[in-house]
């Protein structure tokens, strides 16, 4: 509750960045540079591929966190939106020779349109109803995709040829054909998407969303056009998820409808809640949980079922005790640990507690 209030209060709009914000920004920049330059050299190709997936899914969890954390819209259909973006990108990549960034942009826009079409009528619903209708829509899209399939180089609008003996891979940009290069490419796209969201949250849409999340009647009374801003959130979330879909298409080369089951949408919500919906780092943590942890466990021969159990426990934990997720909890726990250790160390030489 406190966290929400802090972020909602307009007095937080700083004109000049504070010292802690500068430090935070600096640390973030260093980490990003490290990830960009050093990670592909240090990690084996297995983990480079995994980190590319982390980059892709961090965009998806960012979108979901935006909807859940900033606007209070629980979407249970994010995997379906990702599938639409991947479909659009794959179709364009097979049908045209457009440069990759253009294809990503187009995929994002197409997905945004789909998001708006869905969002428009659905916005009359709130809370549980909205969440459930997103689940229903995701279920529909999953069934449609199972029938029309993803493009695989065939002809016609759907671009699917079911009888192929050799399925052609979806192409990658010419500057990023190798796996380490593609990881860097996906990182750049992810950073751009994060920057886009940041640009929104720090300016008027972000304030409007915070007001709506705090109290819709109050926001209405303050003259905020709730419909418009909610739609804007939908549009933004759909756009960046669509772009993520495009990056995914190039990463994995082959798209199958079985890779986007309805269960994935549920898992995505679970990890986004666990990572923390109020901070951008939460999206990265969520993506690490969703993609890196399974790869790690897979490598160690531990069954993926343990992860499903962990996500279930995580959801319960987040909802009952730590609403801001790991992104908030871990630094706080570390700080508490630090204070606790500090007190212990100070106690020792003196003898008596203060």
């Amino acid at each position, binding site marked *: 509750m406190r966290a929400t209030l802090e972020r909602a209060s307009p007095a937080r709009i700083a004109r000049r960045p504070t010292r802690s914000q500068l430090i935070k920004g600096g640390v973030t920049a260093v980490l990003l540079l490290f990830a960009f330059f050093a990670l592909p050299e240090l990690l*084996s*190709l*297995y*983990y480079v*591929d*995994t980190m*590319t*997936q982390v980059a892709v899914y961090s965009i998806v969890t960012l979108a979901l966190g935006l909807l859940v954390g900033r606007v209070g819209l629980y979407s249970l259909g994010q995997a379906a939106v990702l599938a639409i973006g991947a479909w659009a990108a794959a179709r364009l990549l097979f049908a045209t020779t457009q440069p990759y960034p253009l294809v990503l942009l187009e995929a994002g826009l197409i997905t945004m349109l789909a998001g708006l079409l869905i969002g428009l009528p659905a916005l009359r619903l709130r809370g549980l109803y909205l969440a459930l209708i997103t689940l229903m829509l995701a279920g529909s899209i999953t*069934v449609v995709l*199972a*029938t029309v399939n993803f493009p695989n180089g065939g002809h016609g609008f759907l671009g699917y*040829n*079911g*009888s*192929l*003996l*050799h*399925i052609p*891979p979806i192409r990658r940009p010419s500057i990023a054909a190798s*796996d380490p290069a593609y990881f860097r490419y996906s990182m750049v796209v992810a950073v751009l998407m994060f920057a886009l969201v940041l640009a929104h949250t720090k300016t008027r849409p972000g304030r409007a969303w915070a007001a709506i999340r705090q109290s819709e009647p109050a926001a209405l009374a303050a003259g905020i056009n709730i419909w418009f801003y909610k739609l804007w959130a939908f549009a933004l979330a759909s756009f960046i998820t669509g772009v993520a879909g495009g990056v995914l298409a190039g*990463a*994995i*080369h*082959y*798209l*199958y409808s*079985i*890779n986007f089951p309805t269960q994935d949408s549920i898992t995505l919500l679970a990890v986004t809640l666990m990572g923390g919906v109020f901070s951008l780092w939460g999206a990265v943590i969520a993506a690490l949980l969703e993609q890196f942890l*399974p*790869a790690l466990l*897979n*490598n160690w*021969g531990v*069954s*993926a*079922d*343990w992860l499903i*159990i962990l996500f*279930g*426990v995580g959801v*319960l*934990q987040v909802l*009952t*005790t730590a609403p801001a997720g790991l992104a908030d909890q871990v630094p706080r726990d570390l700080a508490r640990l630090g204070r606790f250790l500090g007190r212990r160390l100070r106690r020792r030489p003196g003898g008596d507690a203060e």
Partner: protein
Amino acid sequence: MRRNNAARRTILLAAALALAAAGCSSSSSSSGATGSTPAAGSSSSAGAATVDTSSCGSKPGVKATGTPIPLGAIATNQPGTSFTDIPNMAKAYFDCVNANGGINGRPIKLYIATEQTNPAQIAADAKQLVQTDKVVGIVGNTSIIECSVDSSYWQKLGFYIIDSGIAPECYSTPNSAAVNMGPRYSSDGAVQYALAQHVSKVVFDQANVPGTGYIAAGPNALAKAANVPIVDLTENVPITDANSVAIKEVNDAGPNGAVILNFTPPQALVILQAAQKLGLEDRVKLWGCSTPCNTDFLAQSLGPKWNGKLFVNAELAPPDDTNTTSMNLYKAILKQYGSSVQGGIGSFSQMGFTEAEIAVHALQSITGPYTVQSVNAAFKAVKDFDTGQLCQLWTYGDYPLHIPNNSDWTVTPKDGKMTTAQGCTLISKVDPQIAQYRNAAGTAANAPTGS
């Protein structure tokens, strides 16, 4: 409040862990129970008791020491679909070999990577095996899409993999040779049997997983050549409404028609049971199924109404009807080393056994160091090898595509077990891929030697 929450958290975690830990112990005991099902158990133990597993290796009783020869396998393992039994059985075979002399005294180490049908993960697994585990050969791959995702990678690196194929590329590329027939040719076998019984119409229904068009092309070619109309259906899995599926199939097939299914055992079981409950099983001339249905589990669960009614394509020799050295060795190794093989006796573990058999045979022929080049050259050079599990002798060869197992048995359930209904029959070369393979392979695609 904080204390309650923390307590709640710990309780929850502890409960989940305790449940799972209890489950781990119970599932291993229950898998032991499932491994020796009542009917098959007696025959398997009788066979095993008389066969010494040490014949798997070249030096009985001598444990192999020395630098391990690393091999790799990728298998699907996700809720609802798990193929880990196949590489696990291969590993059991390798364990036997390692305990009995190894390969020129060196043990084989099999790295098994599992995946959840995620192309990124599958590509990553392949790179992990090659770059981190430094495997020199791939034996035992069984995955819904791995062949599609990795075939160009294997081609680039010069790996000639021995696998249990599913995706089209397992059978249409130079770098993969399978011990099984895969869904297309297995469905061909089932449809072929039905056509031989002079049915007037065929309904071919399959799971909506990648490759349905490729799979259906085979049965469609066969039906067309026989001038029998064929209807292609697909169902989304897992099936939630088996009743409508069964009614549709029966309606489309008609009283003198055949319904041929291509599903995993749980899904096929659901459809067949629904047909039985609806009283539809006698409304068509016969029911057929591709090889996944060839398991005693299914025979037991279906009951006597399906005796002689359901005809299943069998890619590998029926374990209960075959009393050869190889089959007895397979059962013995499964019993002694196959504790991680959940499904017990059945086509999955048979495939693992066969793949390992071929690999060991190839490795034993290598003189000099075991490198990617030497091992894969040896795999490719395997020719006319009698695995004892297949109709034909198995050959890899230097061909643009590989379908070395292209002859099948047909089995039917009888009193809880799958029994042979028809001996080895070649898959018709009306299927264009089969024709292409036979042209390329020449005498290697021989007529069956098994019965």
